[in-house]
């Protein structure tokens, strides 16, 4: 089995791209990634593309061939949809294709257009990631579902809204120098606590923003990296995926996210590492509480311990385990179908040393990404290592 290297990464700015089409956004990200990799377009043998709500936002399904066309690629193209984990799954399947020796060069990533919809329509569109029969018809919203999880967590383990506000504030601080971030500004703990309630106990500043954006990665086999003399010092050494019952009510627990635990266990086994080896993480903080679930599922904290991690300064950029140095979904933004690719792009830059926040993890050799779909009915974890 061949190893997989990240030869190139590409992102659009995350934020509001009024007047731009989805295909234009993805074309930009793919262009940047291919240039970063120094790989000719003709060598790309497969496009794995993540997108969640294109049929609702742009009245466009069957997007993968369109995106290949927009990016000037001539290869089989497939769209992956797993709600907010769409790009994570797209990357995972590209990794598996390269490892299997089926392709030497793949492009993987995703795109989402969201800001062209009203808040009500975005709320409605995101809610379709939940169980239509048992949740959506009962008025469960996406923030509402995470609020149900947060309340259950607080009741079982403790923690409070102030703990969560520290997660928000931390991630905004991390985004200050990230040129791709939607919000390059500080948000204080007090501001977060004072924000209007969206779904108690979560407020507006506990939630990630609505975002347009695209991400792309060029993934190559180690043999191809050598053959074409590519500079690709970061390897994807582990991939894992987990699933769970769609509706929260049907899960084994609402105060934890077992699908992500299963994904992490599989990814660590795949890479031959343990949680103790992880020095930096990009995790799926669509809501502040989601970062807490992520850190516990990844085994970086025991259940009930991660809620105070940001407040204690452990996951801040100068802490022992910096989390979401990109700003996370919270401050960098969350174009749903692009996020899983964006996390790997950011972690690659952090490990390569060309991220504005690389200085905080200059000794890091191993990092993980955690990408979650819906209320973590889907989860994808990747292990990235500096391979030299």
């Amino acid at each position: 089995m061949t190893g997989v290297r990240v030869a190139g990464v590409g992102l659009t700015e995350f934020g509001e791209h009024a007047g731009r089409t989805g295909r234009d956004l993805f074309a930009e990200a793919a262009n940047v990634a291919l240039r970063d990799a120094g790989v000719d377009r003709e060598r790309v043998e497969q496009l794995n593309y993540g997108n969640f709500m294109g049929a609702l936002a742009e009245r466009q399904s069957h997007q993968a061939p369109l995106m290949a066309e927009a990016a000037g690629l001539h290869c089989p193209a497939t769209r992956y949809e797993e709600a907010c984990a769409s790009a994570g799954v797209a990357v995972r399947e590209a990794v598996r294709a390269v490892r299997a020796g089926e392709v030497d060069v793949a492009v993987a990533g995703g795109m989402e257009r969201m800001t062209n919809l009203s808040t009500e329509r975005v709320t409605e569109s995101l809610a379709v990631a939940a169980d239509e029969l048992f949740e959506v018809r009962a008025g469960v919203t996406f923030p509402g579902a995470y609020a149900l999880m947060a309340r259950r967590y607080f009741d079982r383990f403790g923690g409070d809204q102030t703990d969560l506000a520290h997660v928000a504030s931390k991630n905004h601080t991390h985004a200050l120098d990230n040129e791709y971030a939607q919000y390059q500004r500080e948000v204080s703990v007090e501001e977060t606590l004072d924000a209007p309630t969206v779904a108690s106990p979560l407020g507006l500043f506990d939630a990630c923003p609505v975002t347009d954006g695209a991400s792309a990665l060029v993934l190559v086999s180690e043999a191809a990296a050598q053959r074409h003399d590519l500079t690709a010092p970061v390897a994807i050494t582990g991939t894992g995926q987990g699933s769970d019952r769609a509706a929260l009510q049907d899960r084994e627990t609402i105060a934890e996210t077992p699908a992500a635990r299963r994904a992490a266990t599989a990814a660590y086994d795949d890479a031959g590492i343990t949680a103790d080896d992880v020095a930096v993480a990009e995790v799926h903080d669509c809501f502040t509480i989601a970062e807490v679930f992520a850190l516990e599922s990844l085994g970086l904290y025991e259940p009930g311990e991660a809620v105070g991690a940001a407040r204690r300064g452990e996951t801040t950029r100068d802490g022992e385990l910096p989390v979401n140095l990109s700003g996370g979904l919270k401050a960098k933004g969350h174009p749903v179908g692009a996020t899983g690719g964006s996390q790997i792009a950011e972690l690659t830059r952090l490990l390569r040393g060309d991220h504005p926040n690389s200085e905080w993890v200059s000794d890091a050799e191993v990092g993980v990404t955690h990408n979650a779909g819906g209320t973590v009915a889907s989860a994808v974890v990747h292990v990235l290592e500096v391979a030299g």
Partner: protein
Amino acid sequence: MSDGAPGGDAGYDEWADALAEDGYYLSCPAGHGSLPPRRVCPECGNDSLSEEPLPAAGEVVTFSAVHVAPPDFAEQTPYVTAVVEFGPVRLTGIVRGLDADEVEIGTQVGVDVTRNEATGNRLVVFRPR
């Protein structure tokens, strides 16, 4: 006006019908509870499912007062969404007859099916007992 959900109402009607009147859930020979409509037990795959009476009272497991809602629920905000445990199964619905600050984890409620005033759709609701 009917729901107009793109998938149609067939599955949802079966679910709402199961809750109307006395209410039932599904149980497999191993005793795993699940909610209709369902062909096999989601735990073990057994397709021999029997209808069992839903306990009259359930206990709130978690809840949230929702202030930002999709169009079908926008006129009701803030409303309280709750997950309620009725013996071997859990249901999700909207709490009626209690204000948000009157709901707690552990609050006892019963289940009912009513109409969403905005759309005419059937809606799972919990009422204090």
